[in-house]
């Protein structure tokens, strides 16, 4: 597998919010078709890292490049799956309309969506097996179904990079496994970065694991040992500062 082309390059990035340092000296390179799991305790800056890659927030210092450009300029190549709990579940919107939002950037500026947008949405829903749910009210779905809808919305823009924030919160083990199987299948085509607070499941599906707790430690999955994870979770890690390249 070719790892030559860098999808995400993060170089010595610091990020602070209201004077508190959230991320410190983060250096990370993600290659094509990589599947990186980012783990770390709650409040460790995992979501912040995703938002930096999306260009929604800007680092205090350091350099971020996505597909060789500023993150904002590569957004059309990124599919993002936020935590569904942040969305208003009483909002009157159908599954189809949620997925179509993923085509907003490509659809005609005025008026409704075009036929090609609808076809793309249907294709994405079939890919994640929620086509039968398309006319249902989004808010009435289960956690796992909502997650699939948001994955379909991310896929409908034909991304080369998929970012997921805690895709398995509030779903049971069986559904969690289904979602990871789905992601593993998608990984044949796209690069995936997945954030999770749960180290257990993740290590059997991802190719590499990065531990974040203000600082970042990165390892190939088979190298993840208890020590690495423990060090990450128990406090700041001082000894590790290296670029991860396989």
């Amino acid at each position, binding site marked *: 597998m070719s790892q030559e082309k860098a999808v995400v390059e993060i170089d010595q990035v610091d990020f602070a919010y209201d004077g508190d340092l959230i991320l410190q000296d983060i250096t990370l390179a993600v290659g094509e078709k990589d599947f990186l799991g980012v783990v770390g305790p709650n409040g460790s800056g995992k979501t912040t890292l995703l938002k930096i890659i*999306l260009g*929604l927030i800007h680092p205090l210092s350091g350099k971020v490049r996505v597909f060789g450009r500023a993150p904002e300029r590569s*957004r*059309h190549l*990124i599919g*993002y799956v*936020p935590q569904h709990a942040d*969305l*208003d579940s*009483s*909002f*009157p*919107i*159908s599954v189809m*309309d*949620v997925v*179509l*939002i*993923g085509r*907003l*950037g490509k*659809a005609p500026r*005025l*008026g*409704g*969506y075009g036929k090609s947008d609808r076809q793309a949405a249907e294709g994405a829903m079939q890919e994640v097996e929620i086509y039968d749910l398309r006319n249902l*009210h989004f808010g009435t779905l289960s956690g796992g179904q909502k997650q699939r809808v948001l994955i379909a*919305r991310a896929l409908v*823009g034909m991304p080369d990079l998929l970012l997921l924030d805690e895709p398995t919160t509030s779903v049971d083990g069986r559904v969690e496994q289904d979602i990871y199987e789905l992601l593993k299948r998608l990984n044949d085509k796209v690069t995936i970065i997945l954030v999770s607070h749960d180290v257990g499941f993740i290590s059997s599906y991802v190719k590499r694991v990065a531990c974040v707790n203000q600082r970042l430690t990165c390892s190939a999955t088979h190298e993840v040992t208890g020590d690495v994870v423990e060090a990450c979770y128990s406090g700041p890690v001082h000894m590790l500062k290296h670029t991860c390249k396989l």
Partner: protein
Amino acid sequence: MFEFLDTLVNHGFMQNAIIIGLLASVACGVMGTYVVVKRIVFISGGISHAVLGGMGVAYYYGYNPIYGAVVSAIVAAVVIGLVSVRYHQHEDTIIGALWAIGMAVGILFIYRTPGYSVDLMSYLFGNILMVERESVYLLASLDALIVILVFLFYKRFLSVCFDEEYSQLQGIGVVTTYLLLLCLIALTVVILIQVVGIILVIALLTLPAATARYYARSLIQMMIIASLLGAVFTTSGLIVSYEPNLPAGATIILIAGLAYLFATASKGVASRFRGHRDRSATP
């Protein structure tokens, strides 16, 4: 009822009132839906009260206050919109201040206008029976403008209301879209002021949409149901208030409020009944 029908057939003012009620229903159904789902009732309240400032200034200089209302509503929408984007943490305090300043400016100008100033009451509480034919045409064109723009920007408004962050990632100008939405709400406020006055605008803007939300599964459905409810509320309010000579605006709001409470209560009973049935179904 017969007296009402007799007036409706023979007098222009009642025909105007019914027409304005129907025009207002479309505007409040469509834009009220956004106010309810985006939870910007307070922001809309700020816009509608600040409008009195523009009405007062126009009145003082001898213009039709409705033009002052249009200008000040748009200015208020843009200013309050930018405040809510930039100063999110102090949003409610700043909007509260703008709300009060707008009203105070309006009251001062109306007070300084020479002559009989009974109009202050009709701005605050509405006087749908006094609206002239000229205003009807203006309100009809505002209505048309609102419906056309909502049609053109429907998918953007939907996406910005549902998931602002994702809309931004799609390259949509989220702030511009939000400000456009607020401007359309401001124009709706101008229409509704003619019906129920500034004080009760928020009720007419939100109650039909909030009631419709219980029965709608999509935004467009919610808009249609809310518009129909608005038409029922305004027309029945006019009929009920006419013979006993009650204020039409307050009567309309009372009917709308009772309908909303009834819908809320019956929805609550229904879901409790369903919950009970679900529990008894599982052993």
